[in-house]
């Protein structure tokens, strides 16, 4: 996928910039991006290590067992062949909880941990497994109860009713997740 998208982005950007006389902007953006990615990754190292550590503690206690009992019906429906003994099961549960609570910074490290464990049991190492596809699509759907970041922005810009958006966000995000899951189910069947 990125083998196509990545070169296309670069080639059309440079060609368009040359045509529209915008080429200096490309230069500065290259330096800027290479710098930004380091700052971003350093922040990410902190968050990832922290949440991996917390997750390791959680998976050594009974807490995940309780939560997974509650989420079991949903997990069974969405993940085609997933049982509680699966190593990735705990990480997937924690990832979903972090998403639902709007803790984006925590959700990514937990999701990556789940990917690592799913890869261990994956039969074709170069290809996404069915469960991996579902995990990814759930993470692109932004399932959250409270859209914290947007609420903060609305509040800081002086909204009279910052929380007005919560109900519309629920409807939109659930619709998006349902469509995402359905399309993934189809993809799983078509692209074996």
């Amino acid at each position, binding site marked *: *996928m990125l083998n196509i998208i990545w070169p296309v982005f670069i080639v059309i*950007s440079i060609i368009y910039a040359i045509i529209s006389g915008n080429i200096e902007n490309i230069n500065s953006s290259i330096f800027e991006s290479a710098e930004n990615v380091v700052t971003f990754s350093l922040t990410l190292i902190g968050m990832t*290590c922290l949440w991996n550590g917390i997750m390791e503690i959680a998976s050594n206690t009974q807490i995940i067992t309780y939560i997974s009992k509650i989420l079991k019906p949903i997990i069974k429906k969405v993940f085609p062949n997933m049982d509680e003994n699966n190593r990735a099961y705990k990480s997937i549960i924690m990832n979903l909880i972090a998403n639902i609570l709007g803790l984006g910074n925590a959700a990514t490290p937990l999701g*990556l941990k789940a990917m690592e464990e799913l890869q261990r049991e994956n039969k074709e190492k170069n290809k996404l497994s069915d469960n991996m596809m579902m995990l990814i699509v759930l993470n692109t759907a932004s399932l959250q109860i409270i859209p914290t970041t947007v609420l903060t922005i609305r509040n800081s810009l002086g909204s009279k009713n910052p929380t*007005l958006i919560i109900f519309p966000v629920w409807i939109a995000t659930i619709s998006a997740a349902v469509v995402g899951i359905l399309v*993934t189910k189809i993809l799983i069947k078509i*692209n074996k």
Partner: protein
Amino acid sequence: MQIINYISIVAMPMIILLIIINALKEKTQVFNIFLKGATDGIEIVLKIFPTLLGLFVAIGMLRSSGIIDFIIKIISPVTNFFKMPSEILPLALLRPISGSASMAIATDIIKNYGVDTFIGILASVIMGSTETTLYTIAVYTGSVKIKNTRGILIAGLAADITGIIVALIICRILII
């Protein structure tokens, strides 16, 4: 708003507290276990760093080249037909590929058109209900070095488009 603010603030500390108290109750060696997990974290970030670098540079070029404005000019007749306000288009286009860029644009839109106007609310709902699809897919597949993604991008984009359309419809119904 205050209650919701409070819930968002206490969510993360509460989870940590709950996990640690449970661990103490079960008499586990909490800090040793924490260190074991945290050590694995470094490797995960190192693995996705090249993916991040590639994405940041390509998306940075895309934004600075000005081609996004050009694409908006081309597709605006179609979106106008569906009564999608053209002010929202840059946000809708950038949302799947860049989290920081779309956040900057959303803030800009909300500032310019007013936080409680139709456009301001629509931009907020779109930001709250969609995710940076391309980044998520790249990082998740990159972390385990998988190349065959079985068309998962289609599912992610379908979810984004649905989120944006439903946001538009529900804002039209709720706000007149």
